[in-house]
């Protein structure tokens, strides 16, 4: 099979799988579990995108929820104020599920772009700062964003923003197929970015900024790029979340949420994308499934963070990735003459 044919086959297969998941899963499992899976998807994307900045570029950012908020609210606003009529129009031409599938990438993209812009605005000044100061600056920006949104009445302000629309149009989109597909593609893009030769620049900046500069790497630009890309995907995650829940409130994007996402990245292992994803999935699912624990959930959570740092500071996977060997193929090289 040629490379092109193989790619096409994979894509078609993936598409079929997603459609299947979309149609079948809600019928097979309780809607509560569908919600959990949706939240896992959001958490995974948030954690993996943050890992690019924290784990790979070594810039300690703890305001990620702020960018999710920008994405969530932008996507939601687009849907409520512009999307509803668009979707209604589409539904006259196409069957409703197809129309919705065609429409929904739009608010996600809008959310991602808006968040990315916010990331640039925050990153360009903040990334001049070192370590602790950068952490606090990102925390501060995250809070400023949250408070600013809280004061915008057009998106609900303190009451929160409901994705309501005229009859016949449902803006709520808890499609596991879409969420799964978006998350998978996003993670794949981030992974390719991190593990390319150009992506080595991220880790070079992490290891030694001075040496990186001396080797021709424009460190500030690399940091800003990491920030902008990470914010983009945080925005997408936020928009996914907003549409899956059908309602957004700034309470979902406080600095506690930022800490949680950071915890996923750290506990999974800074420097590991799959680690972050794994930690995000497990730590999002477990408390949901152990709902009976009530307030103990957060206590156990914080204990977990503390104990992990004391006992295994490199996290679950350190800087290794969980790979499915047969899926990864390195380009074949002619072996150079033995030394």
């Amino acid at each position: 099979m040629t490379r092109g044919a193989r790619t096409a086959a994979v894509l078609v297969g993936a598409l079929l799988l997603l459609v299947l998941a979309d149609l079948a899963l809600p019928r097979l499992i309780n809607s509560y579990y569908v919600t959990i899976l949706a939240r896992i998807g959001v958490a995974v994307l948030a954690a993996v995108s943050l890992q690019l900045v924290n784990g790979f570029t070594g810039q300690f950012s703890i305001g990620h929820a702020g960018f999710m908020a920008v994405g969530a609210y932008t996507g939601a606003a687009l849907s409520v104020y512009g999307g509803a009529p668009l979707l209604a129009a589409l539904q006259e031409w196409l069957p409703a599920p197809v129309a919705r599938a065609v429409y929904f990438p739009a608010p996600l993209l809008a959310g991602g772009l808006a968040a990315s812009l916010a990331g640039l605005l925050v990153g360009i000044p903040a990334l001049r700062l070192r370590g602790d100061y950068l952490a606090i600056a990102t925390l501060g920006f995250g809070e400023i964003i949250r408070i600013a949104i809280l004061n915008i009445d057009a998106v609900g302000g303190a009451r929160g923003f409901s994705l309501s629309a005229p009859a016949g149009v449902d803006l709520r989109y808890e499609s596991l197929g879409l969420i799964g597909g978006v998350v998978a593609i996003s993670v794949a893009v981030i992974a390719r970015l991190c593990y390319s030769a150009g992506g080595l620049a991220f880790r070079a900046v992490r290891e030694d900024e001075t040496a990186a500069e001396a080797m021709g790497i424009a460190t500030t630009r690399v940091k800003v790029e990491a920030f902008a890309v990470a914010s983009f995907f945080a925005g997408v995650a936020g928009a996914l979340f907003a549409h899956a829940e059908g309602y957004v409130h700034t309470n979902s994007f406080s600095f506690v949420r930022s800490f949680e996402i950071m915890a996923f990245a750290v506990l999974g292992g800074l420097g590991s994308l799959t680690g972050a994803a794994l930690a995000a999935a497990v730590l999002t699912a477990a408390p949901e499934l152990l709902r009976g624990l009530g307030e103990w959930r957060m206590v156990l959570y914080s204990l977990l963070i503390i104990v992990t740092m004391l006992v295994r500071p490199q996290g679950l996977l350190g800087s290794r990735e969980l790979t499915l060997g047969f899926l990864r193929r390195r380009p074949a090289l002619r072996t150079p003459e033995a030394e």
Partner: protein
Amino acid sequence: MKALLELAGVTVRFGGVIAISRLDLRVDGGQLVAVIGPNGAGKTTGFNVITGFCPPTEGVVRLDGERIDGVPPHEICCRGIARTFQNIRLFRSLTALENVSAALAGARRSGRADVLRGAQWQRREIGNEARARELLGRLGLARFADARADSLPYGEQRRLEIARALATGPRLLLLDEPAAGMNPSEKEALRQLIVSLRSEFELSIVLIDHDIPFVMNLCERVSVLDHGEKIAEGPPEMVRRDPHVIEAYLGTDGEPSAAHA
């Protein structure tokens, strides 16, 4: 003939301290020169000025006639100056291969957006890796390619820093105490390596070191700094006999002074 590198009247002041005072230095294409002097003489500061980490308070730095003082370090690297560091600054948790690849990609300005370009990107990735392995092989580090940089023996780490600097494709290579911590046979191997690298990669090399015999056997010209000022310059034999140099290193009464390392 236009100089490759030229420092004219460079002064560097940190608050009240004068690190370098009215320094003039000139390096022509293909030359192998040394800058020596007691601790605190301003040698590394000089390197920092040349590579853009420390803008001069006064004076200019020119590469090929063009001013580079005030240009950011990564840009200076792209224009053809590479360096190693007094205290090894490798990308420690990255493999030797990755250290060199990162520098290759950096100097070639491989951007992150390249990942979106499909087949062309794949080819460039393969080319990058092949070139990186080649450089490692040239410096005798092929078998360490997939080892973490900080797991390499000391001498190998120093050579890896050189390999990494070479990956940026420089015309001028600055080596900051490359022989530090080496035993005599390692130093001899390094000496031969530097000479062969100079011709093979068509480089000009400026070297900082404390080891006078090492420098004397290697370089065509030696500049001596003391307390930020150039006190002597010329062929090694001449400099070695210069009374100011002897005084700076040994003190006026012939005893090693506190300034000597």
